[in-house]
C-alpha cells in the first residue's frame, strides 16, 4: 500500500529550485505553449488525473499550484520560465479555459491564482455490469447520461 508523507514546507522555494530548468523560454517555445493551452478544452475545473496530461512546462506550474495553493504572476513566471508579461497571457488563458481561479492577494494588489477544482464525479465500481447491459440495449446513446456512448458507460 502506498504511503505518503507530507511535510509542511515552503513550496515556492522548493518548486523554484526544482524547476530552475526554468531557463527563459524562447519566443517560439512560448508561442507553441500558448497554442497548446489555447487548444485545451474549456472545463469547469480539473481533477487530479488531469495533472498527468497538462503540457510541459506548464505541468510544473500546475503542480506548484496544487502544492502551494496559490501563486502570483511572478512566481508562476519563474516556475514556467517565461517573463511576467508572458505568464500573464498564459494565466489569462488558463482562467478563461476553466483551469485556474483568481484569488485575493495577501500582498497588496497583486492577484494570486489557484487551481479550479472540479467536483469528482461518481465512481461506479458497483453496478457497472448492469449499466453496460442497459447501454447495449440502446442504439448509440447511453441511457444513464443521455450522451453518445463512451467507455465509462
Amino acid at each position: 500500500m502506498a504511503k505518503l508523507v507530507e511535510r509542511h514546507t515552503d513550496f515556492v522555494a522548493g518548486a523554484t529550485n526544482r524547476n530552475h530548468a526554468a531557463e527563459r523560454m524562447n519566443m517560439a517555445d512560448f508561442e507553441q505553449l500558448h497554442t497548446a493551452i489555447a487548444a485545451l478544452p474549456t472545463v469547469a475545473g480539473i481533477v487530479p488525473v488531469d495533472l498527468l496530461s497538462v503540457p510541459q512546462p506548464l505541468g510544473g506550474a500546475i503542480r506548484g499550484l496544487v502544492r502551494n495553493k496559490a501563486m502570483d504572476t511572478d512566481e508562476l513566471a519563474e516556475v514556467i520560465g517565461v517573463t511576467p508579461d508572458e505568464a500573464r497571457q498564459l494565466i489569462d488563458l488558463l482562467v478563461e479555459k476553466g483551469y485556474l481561479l483568481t484569488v485575493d492577494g495577501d500582498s497588496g494588489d497583486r492577484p494570486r491564482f489557484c487551481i479550479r477544482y472540479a467536483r469528482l464525479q461518481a465512481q461506479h465500481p458497483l453496478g457497472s455490469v448492469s449499466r453496460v447491459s442497459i447501454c447495449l440495449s440502446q442504439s448509440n446513446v447511453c441511457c444513464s447520461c443521455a450522451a453518445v456512448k463512451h467507455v465509462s458507460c
Partner: protein
Amino acid sequence: MEEAVGVVDTDIQSPGIHVLFGVTEADMKHSLNDYLWGTCDIKSTAVDVTQRVGISGGGTIYLIPSSVKTNEIARVLREGYDVGLLNDGFEDLIKQLKLDVLLIDTHPGLNEETLLSIAISDGLAIVMRPDQQDYQGTGVTVEVARKLGVPRLLLVVNKVPKTFDKEQVRERVEETYAAQVGAMLPHSDHMMVLGSSGLFTQQFPDHPITGELRQLVALLMA
C-alpha cells in the same frame, strides 16, 4: 522526538488503517466522509490515538479515519466530492493541529485521492512485494510519481522471504525502478501473529523490521 503526526486514511473505498490504532466505528464521531460532505470541519474528524497505542515521550498521533459504514462508502462512490476540499483539508489539518508530519495512507491502486496525495506530498514511499505482479503495478506508480514531480521517492520491499538474498533483491529493485529502496521488510511470523491488532514498532521495538522502518522514516524526513 516530540513530533505531532497526523495519519489520514484516504482509502475511502476500503478504509482499514484505523484497526492498527484500535479505533472502532464507535470512536469515530466524525470521519473524512463527513468533512467531504461539508457536515463538519476537518479538525473534528481527528482522533487522538497517542494513548491507545502507548506512545510516550511527548509526541502526538492523530488519526483521521474514513467511514467504515457501507452506506457512507457507497455515497462517496455514488455522489463524488469536491477535490479542492480534500486538498484544503490536508492544509488545514497541518495548520490547526500544528502537525510536523502528515502521513497519507492511500488506496493501493491509482485513483483520484492517490493522485492528489502524490501530487502534494514531499515524500512518497511505495510498498511492494517481491513478486512479478507487484513489479508491474509498482512500475506504473513510480512512473506517475515521477510525472507528478514528487521530491523524494522511496520503495519499501515488503514480505521478503528469508530464503532470498536481501542485497540481491535490493539491487534488482533499485535497478528496475531507478529509485532508492528505503526499507527491506522480511517476512515475519511476528507480524502475521500481530494481525493488525497494534503497531508493530510498539510491540517489537527491537525487531529488525522496526529497525528498517526507523531507517525509512529517517530517509523520508531527511
